[in-house]
């Protein structure tokens, strides 16, 4: 009797010991081995074109430098899996992930600072891109390998049928969306089309992500810099309120946003555009290969976003190379990021009709028209160069995106809500988030 109790206690104790093992001392300086194989994690679907593209890039890198790279593609729960490796104190050497992950990864101590002096190609980087890899204190923690910005896709045949010009102002934009909704552009005699395709679900903050194209073009902001690396909420500023009102009217007054948008993330929204249910869509270039195949290249066109009340600012996004802490091959890490942003690396990354990892080049010396003669890419490159804007690298951007997505979603779903009250609530919530992250302006 006694003994069996002891066994039970033993089990419990060992469980406790095993779990407490996981919290050891912080990242140790690993012994360097310049020949060690570099482990690279990339956030893309395993077996998909993204992985193929990454492999092409790493193979070119291996050939050029003699380093060895092992690529692992992970899509679902990428960040959680990275945490697990962090718990084992054995991070991959390199991570290729979204630029917006910078704050989160840096505040967890997962990154090592990049010495730009060792990355000779960094002088050719587009300034905007270089900036996107800096943390709030101005230190470089990541370098982008690919960029993208939003542009407007329009159903060309619909526009021709209704004899409309490409929109030059927000009024044109709204008028076109309304015409696509009410004037039966597909000519089937039924009112079954909508102007604008918009993923406005709260999932992953899509509503906020999509709305940022409009908010920024109006001169509004989610949070705005208040000096010395601090921020304050800005959703009740005059510009933000007007942007929200205008965007809301598209859905509530003109009814020109696709029905069901408030529960749709990107896959079902893409389908509405492909299926000829919607005629305008503000997206990045990564959807072009897909729409070329499903809808046909001749059916739609890519134009820059029309100027808003302030300018034509659109959301810039992209992928960055992160050099992870604790690597035993720092020279190899430097060499890889240097290759990825070099003219050669960028060209390898852009090659092919599908399975390219570089959307728009981040290297100034690379001319996109030479690699991709398709003028639509030129439009995207131009939008990025002149009007692209990244989300700020605050320690954790996700809560800001979630909170704003919830509000945008609410205002679009329920046309009876008072806009100002909702935005005031949102500002209060944002203030709390900023305070929690220690970057609130006093």
């Amino acid at each position, binding site marked *: *009797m006694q*003994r*069996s*109790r002891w*066994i*039970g206690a033993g*089990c*419990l104790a*060992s*469980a*406790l010991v*095993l*779990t*407490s093992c*996981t*919290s*050891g*001392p*912080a*990242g140790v300086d690993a012994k360097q081995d310049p020949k060690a194989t570099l482990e690279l994690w990339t956030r893309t679907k395993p077996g998909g074109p993204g992985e193929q593209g990454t492999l092409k890039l790493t193979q070119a890198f291996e050939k050029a430098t003699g380093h060895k790279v092992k690529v692992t593609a992970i899509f679902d*729960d990428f*960040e*959680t899996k990275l*945490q*697990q490796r*962090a*718990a084992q*104190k054995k*991070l991959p050497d390199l991570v290729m992930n979204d630029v917006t992950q910078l704050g*989160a990864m840096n505040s*967890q*101590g*997962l990154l090592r600072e990049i010495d730009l002096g060792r990355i000779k190609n960094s002088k050719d980087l587009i300034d905007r891109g270089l900036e996107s890899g800096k943390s709030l204190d101005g230190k470089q923690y990541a370098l982008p390998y690919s960029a993208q910005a939003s542009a407007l896709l329009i159903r060309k045949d619909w526009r021709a049928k209704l004899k409309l010009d490409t929109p030059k102002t927000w009024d044109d934009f709204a008028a076109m969306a309304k015409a696509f909704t009410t004037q039966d552009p597909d000519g089937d005699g*039924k009112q*079954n089309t909508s102007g604008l395709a918009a993923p406005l*679900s*709260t*999932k*992953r903050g899509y509503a906020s992500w999509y709305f940022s194209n409009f908010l920024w073009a109006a001169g509004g902001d989610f949070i705005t810099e208040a000096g010395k690396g601090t921020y304050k909420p800005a959703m009740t500023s005059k510009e933000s309120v007007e942007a929200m009102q205008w965007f809301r009217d598209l859905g509530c007054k003109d009814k020109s946003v696709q*029905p*069901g*948008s*408030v*529960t749709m*993330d990107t896959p*079902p929204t893409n389908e509405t555009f492909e299926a000829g249910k919607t005629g305008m869509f503000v997206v990045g270039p990564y959807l072009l290969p897909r729409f070329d195949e499903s809808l046909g290249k001749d059916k739609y066109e890519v134009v820059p976003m029309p100027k808003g009340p302030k300018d034509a600012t659109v959301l810039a996004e992209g992928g960055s190379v992160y050099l992870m*802490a*604790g690597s035993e091959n720092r020279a190899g890490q430097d060499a890889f990021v240097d290759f990825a942003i070099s003219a050669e690396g960028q060209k390898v990354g852009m090659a092919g009709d599908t399975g390219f990892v570089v959307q728009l080049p981040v290297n100034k010396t690379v001319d996109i028209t030479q690699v991709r003669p398709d003028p639509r890419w030129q439009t995207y490159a131009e939008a990025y160069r002149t009007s692209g804007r990244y989300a700020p690298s605050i320690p*954790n951007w*996700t*809560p800001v995106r*979630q909170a704003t997505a*919830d509000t945008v*979603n*609410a205002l*679009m*779903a*329920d046309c009876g*809500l008072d806009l100002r009250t909702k935005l005031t609530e949102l500002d209060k*919530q944002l203030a709390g988030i900023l305070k929690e992250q220690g970057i609130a302006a006093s």
Partner: protein
Amino acid sequence: MSLDQADPAALPAAGPATRPAGADGSRKRGRRSGRWWTPWLFLAPALLLFLYFKFIPMVSALTMSFQDVQPYLGNKWVGTENYATVLQSLGFREAAWHTVVLAAGQTAGSMALGLALALLMEGQSRRLGFVRSAAFLPVVVPIAVVAELWRIMYHPTEDGMLNSILGLVGFGPSGFINDPDSSMASIMVTGIWRGAPYDMMIFLAGLTGVDRGLYEAAKVDGASRWQRVRYVTVPGLRSVFSILFILAAIRGLRVFTEVFLLTNGGPNGSTEVVMTLIYKLGLEQNRLGVGAAGAVLLFVATLILTVVVQLLRRRESK
């Protein structure tokens, strides 16, 4: 587990069934040379699996719920801060209320529909077997497919599938999951559609245990069909009801997938449940400590619910 299983093991004389075969002659020696571990040896594979895949993760989740989880820098103890974050987060109370409403609605709806289906499909006929399998299909279909199916059926315009049926009987198009007023009910209906056949199967099993003689006796006494259901079938299924209630309530509290796939808590937070909130706070924001705290809270709520139902049952059976 340990006491129930350990008692007979530690006192081999008390439970001959647990003693290894052929131990008669060696009872004395067995006691001396540590035969006490034999049952543990048999249990070891299962215990080891439980230890690594259940108990250790549970304990570490509990530890994590008191920590700021930063695996690389080392976790920091923050006391009950994570719990405060969850409990004080905007909309936690609403989410808890939504969860209760959804759990209650789905449980009641599935049980009512399940019982009705079971009564309709009770019997031996071979054709019934086919119908039963067909009715059981929603349970077997992966939830991701179910959600996509219902999203199509819930299309918010007049030419949407359910809306065109509503149109036939003169009701205007409903927004279903896209309208904050009807989103919760829509998710509930999806849940009932999926849960009812499962309940039906358990009811069917329970129905075979109801004495046929009682039906005949009731019939002889002049009971109507409804009265037979009311006074014979339902009391006969009492234990089935309580099992189903516990299962459904636990399922209801943990509801996640259908909400996540259909609305992700929107529109305007009208369908936010505890699990989607935990997912947002903990996993999407990569704050695992907060996620763990939420999970522990949910576990405690489930535990309390189960214990209360058990106590009520015990009191009733006395």
